[in-house]
């Protein structure tokens, strides 16, 4: 370690805070925006921000998955659905004001409550190893293994879920 390390760390911190602020702001914007398409865009930013966090934490594979699945898959679905159901430029209605306020207060209370509990109880004794690059091979082996901490069974199982969802979604979405 040394200065460079310190600088690295500081840079990492700065990047993190920028990302954190962006994520927070876009999260809020995503759920408050009056235009649905903008809302979706903000969501995309949040997801990208999250992907950024994954990089910061050294999980590049997850970063890739996040980008691929969310930005590539889910957002496309969203955009598609939005275009199908909304006329462009149309503002979407919000809930009644009192309900919004109630929801806001509850959410803030929830943040306060959970934040309080998490902050005071989370284990803060940790020594962060500087993230070394995860080997995809290792991931692949773990994904294909049957020992403890290996994930072949869920991997196989989730395929059933995916298949079922596809079948179900197609059944619902197709005409006749």
């Amino acid at each position: 370690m040394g200065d460079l390390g310190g600088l690295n760390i500081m840079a990492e911190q700065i990047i993190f805070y920028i990302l954190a602020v962006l994520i927070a702001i876009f999260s809020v914007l995503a759920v408050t925006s009056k235009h649905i398409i903008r809302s979706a865009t903000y969501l995309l930013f949040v997801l990208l921000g999250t992907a950024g966090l994954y990089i910061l934490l050294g999980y590049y594979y997850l970063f890739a998955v996040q980008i691929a699945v969310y930005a590539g898959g889910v957002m496309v679905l969203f955009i598609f659905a939005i275009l199908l159901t909304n006329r462009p430029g149309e503002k979407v209605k919000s809930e009644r004001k009192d309900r919004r306020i109630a929801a806001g207060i509850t959410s803030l209370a929830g943040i306060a409550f959970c934040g309080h509990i998490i902050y005071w109880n989370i284990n803060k004794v940790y020594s962060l190893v500087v993230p070394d690059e995860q080997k995809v091979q290792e991931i692949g082996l773990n994904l294909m293994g049957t020992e403890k901490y290996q994930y072949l069974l869920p991997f196989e199982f989730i395929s059933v879920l995916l298949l079922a969802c596809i079948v179900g979604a197609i059944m619902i979405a197709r005409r006749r």
Partner: protein
Amino acid sequence: MDYSSFLQMTEEFSLLAVMVILLVYDIFAGEKSHRYFQPVALILFAAHTLLTCIPREAFNIAGGMFQYVPMQTYVKTILNIGTLIVLLQAHKFLNDDSNYIKRGEFYFLTLSTLLGMYFMISSGNFLMFFIGLETASIPMATLVAFDKYNKKSAEAGAKYILSAVFASSISLFGISLIYGTTGTLYFNDIATLFTGTPLQLMAFVFFAVGLFFKISLVPFHLWTPDVYEGAQTNITSYLSVISKGAAVFVLFTLLVKVFGNIISDWQPILYGLAVVSITVANVFAIRQQNLKRFLAFSSISQAGYILLAIISGTALGMASLVYFVLVYMFSNLAAFGVLSVIEQKTGKVQMTDYNGLYQTNPKLSFVMMIALFSLAGIPPFAGFFSKFFIFSAAAQQGFYVLVFIALLNTIISLYYYLLVIKAMFLNANENPIEKVTSDFPAKISLVICTIGIMIVGIISTFYNQIAVFSFSM
């Protein structure tokens, strides 16, 4: 890497095989041979039920991600029988013109949710558990919206998916916190690490509400009546019996196996939930006119009763719980069966439509009556025994007041069950529902249910068998 150990999951593989065969059949069979799709499906599924009904030695595979204990075979068999009954009852509905084409999907989706429940039941790891939970609920949403040109059905589907996803998000957040505090997702490891710090408690609550949602306990129940009403009747019965049955069993095992250390914390939670669920559901049920909504509230209050078995956390409670699910399955499916037979024929689901039903349909009325009596816990029907046992299990742990409150509620529940019976037997009606002849599979299903209601209580073998493999902390 030894994949052969996976072969021990016979139940899952057998079900998967049925699913695959049906999927292939559905896709590739010609118009002509497609007529035999349903009989083949039913026979295959029945065969699966029979083949997998024998308990085996307990085992762990995939490093403890999949944990089998013999009790699970009973639970899965109960779910299988229930599913079979539902499929039998759905036979006619699937032969309708509008649904004929979707039969393959129906079976595939139903069985995949069932498979999800299997994994949920046998999981030894939160990841498996979560995937199982989602597999049991996401395809379920499409089933709820199955009748997609029906506004109600579509609405119900939307409500279900939104609520389910909301619940699973919170649950997922809870799991993440559990992971954060224990550092592992394996049940066996968590059990020792989970000591009840505040964060762990919060994590537990966040996680548990996901299951409470599935079991539809008050106040996590609000989606239930709407979805039950909107979904096609057979799917409603599937939802109310199979899905719920799996969830309560899982709740019990999780509470006992994973969260056993914080028993003094979850017992009060369940206590409160049981009281609130039973009471609120009963009060709501009183004035329901739509029988599906009515049964929805009834099933919520039944869920409250089930908590009495869970709260004890003993082997006795476990056996009583499984037994209760078995009995509840027969009773509720009988009621829904009658409902679906009549609904498919006449489209009537209002209580006033049932006025004077006995004059024209004595057999259906009779089945409905014993089903409701069984739900109300009236001897000599099985419901009496199951209720008695869960009360007994709770009383054994000293929850007398809870038992007492639950019992007082049985008065209210008896009242509304009697309302239906009154409609069928007592109320005069100029134009009762005309004579309805049910199709053969539905008849079989009703006969199975009736026999089940009649003998499962009086013959103690069922309970005693279940009790052999029940376990506790």
